[in-house]
């Protein structure tokens, strides 16, 4: 299922494994037990956040370990099935709201007020508009995302779907599943989709 490459961590584990006397499965189980005893619930962050779904379990691996084709397909199929497109059929919201959502990193932390809408924090990991110099590089640059692709219906559906559930298209993606996990509302996902695709959005200038 996994193809381990020799990493420093991998080597150290190989050395330690025998002595610590745990199989990989046992170590995974023991780590979870220790974590369950090491966190306490606070605010909106309850202990059930340590309960992993299938994708989280299968994706708790180093990036050097590539999941098998079978595992990849299983994750993507299940996540694709989770996407709920808007009932009104409209996928593009207001890019100005989308920009605000892209700038905000709050939401779902134990320190956040659950009544305040979450952000998507896109800029933490992606370049978007040219004007914002403070952007991260964990994900690819999205500058000119719509200009390069247009805003045809399939592109709109892909973009909305990718924000809704990134793992429908890339198993074990680093990107949060904003719709699937209830981080963003339907309207917020429309707004972010508009930020990416609207010709007037600063991303496409």
């Amino acid at each position: 299922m996994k193809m381990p490459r020799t990493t420093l961590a991998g080597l150290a584990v190989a050395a330690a494994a025998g002595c610590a006397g745990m199989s990989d499965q046992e170590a995974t189980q023991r780590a979870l037990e220790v974590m369950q005893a090491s966190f306490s619930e606070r605010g909106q962050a309850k202990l059930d956040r340590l309960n992993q779904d299938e994708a989280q379990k299968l994706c708790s691996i180093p990036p050097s370990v590539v999941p098998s084709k079978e595992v990849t397909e299983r994750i993507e199929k299940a996540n694709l099935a989770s996407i709920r497109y808007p009932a009104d059929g409209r996928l593009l919201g207001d890019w100005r709201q989308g920009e605000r959502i892209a700038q905000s990193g709050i939401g779902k932390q134990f320190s956040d007020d659950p009544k305040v809408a979450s952000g998507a924090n896109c800029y933490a990991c992606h370049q978007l508009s040219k004007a914002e110099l403070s952007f991260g590089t964990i994900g690819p640059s999205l500058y000119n995302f719509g200009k390069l692709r247009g805003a045809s219906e399939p592109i709109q559906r892909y973009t909305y779907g990718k924000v809704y559930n990134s793992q429908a298209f890339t198993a074990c993606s680093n990107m949060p599943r904003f719709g699937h996990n209830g981080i963003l509302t339907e309207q917020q996902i429309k707004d972010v989709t508009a930020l990416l695709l609207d010709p007037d959005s600063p991303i496409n200038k």
Partner: protein
Amino acid sequence: MLHSRRKVLKSGGGAGVLALLFAAGIVRPGDVLAQEWNQAAFSTKTVPEALRALGATGPAASGAIQIKAPEIAENGAVVPIAIESKLPGTESITLLIEKNPQPLAASFTIPAGTEPNVSTRVKIGESSDVYALVKADGKFYLAKKEIKITLGGCGG
């Protein structure tokens, strides 16, 4: 004399009185710094008001003042700024941050024998021009630099 001067400053309070006194050569800014915190100047809301309150009417733009600061600060809570004046007879160095609620940030009196070169760290609320006001040989000079403040970290 000293007593009456302080009384004037206290009761007069307003920038206008100070400016008049500066203009008349009765009070030197240095004297004010050594005695009373300049409430009037620190309370002003704009750079022009602050300059007026400091008695800096008609400062001349000067290339002999260098503001050493990063063009982009990773965090506005701590922005290192050094100001160096190459103007002979520099008496004071004052730092103003245009977009801060109260632009006047700090003012340094430079006695003879002290280099006209000070370094400190300030808070800057948002991207802003910063000004260095230097008094040298009784005249005021000004320089500016833009500092961009960025959002950083995980954002939460």
